[in-house]
């Protein structure tokens, strides 16, 4: 089961900070849950920058971003 980071309701840039921390820990397969379009875009950009791939899927009011190796 991939690790899940719940970044819903957090101000900018905390979803990105949490994503960065996960990548730093060496995780390459995990999910980030966010609830705004801006957080989704920011997390995806952060993931791409770190040479991982990310895809977002809408889940009600939230987005689940699945991160994996390229």
């Amino acid at each position: 089961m991939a690790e899940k980071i719940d970044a819903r309701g957090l101000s900018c840039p905390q979803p990105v900070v949490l994503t960065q921390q996960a990548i730093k820990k060496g995780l390459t397969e995990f999910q980030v849950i966010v609830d705004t379009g801006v957080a989704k875009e920011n997390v995806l950009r952060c993931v791409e920058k770190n040479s991982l791939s990310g895809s977002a899927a809408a889940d009600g009011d939230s987005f689940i971003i699945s991160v994996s190796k390229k």
Partner: protein
Amino acid sequence: MKNFFSSKVGIIFTGAVIGLIAVTLQKLGNPANMGICVACFERDIAGALGFHRADVVQYIRPEIAGLVLGSFVVALFTKEYQPRAGSSTIIRFFLGMFAMIGALVFLGCPWRALLRLSGGDWNAVTGLAGLAAGIGIGVLFLKKGFSLGRNYKLKKSAGWVFPALMLVLVIMLIYQVRAQSGLLFLSAKGPGSMHARITVSLAAGLFIGAIAQRSRFCTMGSIRDIMLAKDFHLVSGVLALVAAATALNFVYGQFHPGFANQPIAHTVHIWNFGGMVLSGLAFALAGGCPGRQLIMSGEGDSDSAVFVVGMIVGAAVAHNFLLASSAAGTGKFGPAAVIIGIVFCLIIGFTMREKVS
């Protein structure tokens, strides 16, 4: 649907358009190097409502209302209108208040700092350096787990309140101008008396609000993202703003380089720097520059709306208690207030850390 404005080209387009519109607003009547200044314009609104009685800076700026309403309408259409609140609301109020005090010691928000630079006011360089330093301190806190906590979803109507207030302000302005009613305080001289036509100002605000909502344009974020993640996305918009505004200032003959005698500015470098350290730190802790806070309040973010209200109250505090600077230099208690504000932000930064699981 792919969001064009969130692309690199989109953010550059947004920055350039804000720069061009701002400089054009100056040509059409807004104060020099102040085509759009969120801090100055909220200060003018505080004055128009009589919250402070500095009679040279009192006007309901339709640009501010436009930014909120433009964002509100676009957010409704793009389903990004999401009423939310509850993330350390009172702290955000005080961050807004101190951010405004810092901005009024420097005499401008980050947008105006960029516009001052584009007009050749080199004092903006010290201000922007201070802004970067303040954001740098904020980034250190963010890396250590600083958080004001989560917000929570609210009912749809909760997010209408702030945009509705903005609409009311514009209606009050139009009524005042038509009926000479004495409803508002409007400057007869000074920067508050200098403005483009109401319709032009409102249209400019609406348009910028719309594209800023789509592109997530944020001046504080541009510096923060470089420091935090070596991400140069937002800063490309900021650089585009400066480039476009500078170019158009040359065309309009509005470029006057130098330190001395710049419009609505002073040359007390240490407090140009210090004021913006305070603002930068407060913006970083609150998660957005003043313009971005307006945009987010249009999206239904009540915490951002409270930050804006804090800024408006901060403007009243700054002018009622001799904190605000003027062309003659800093206000009597401005430097002391900046230090108090920085201490406040540091306490918040050190104490509001949490491990978010």
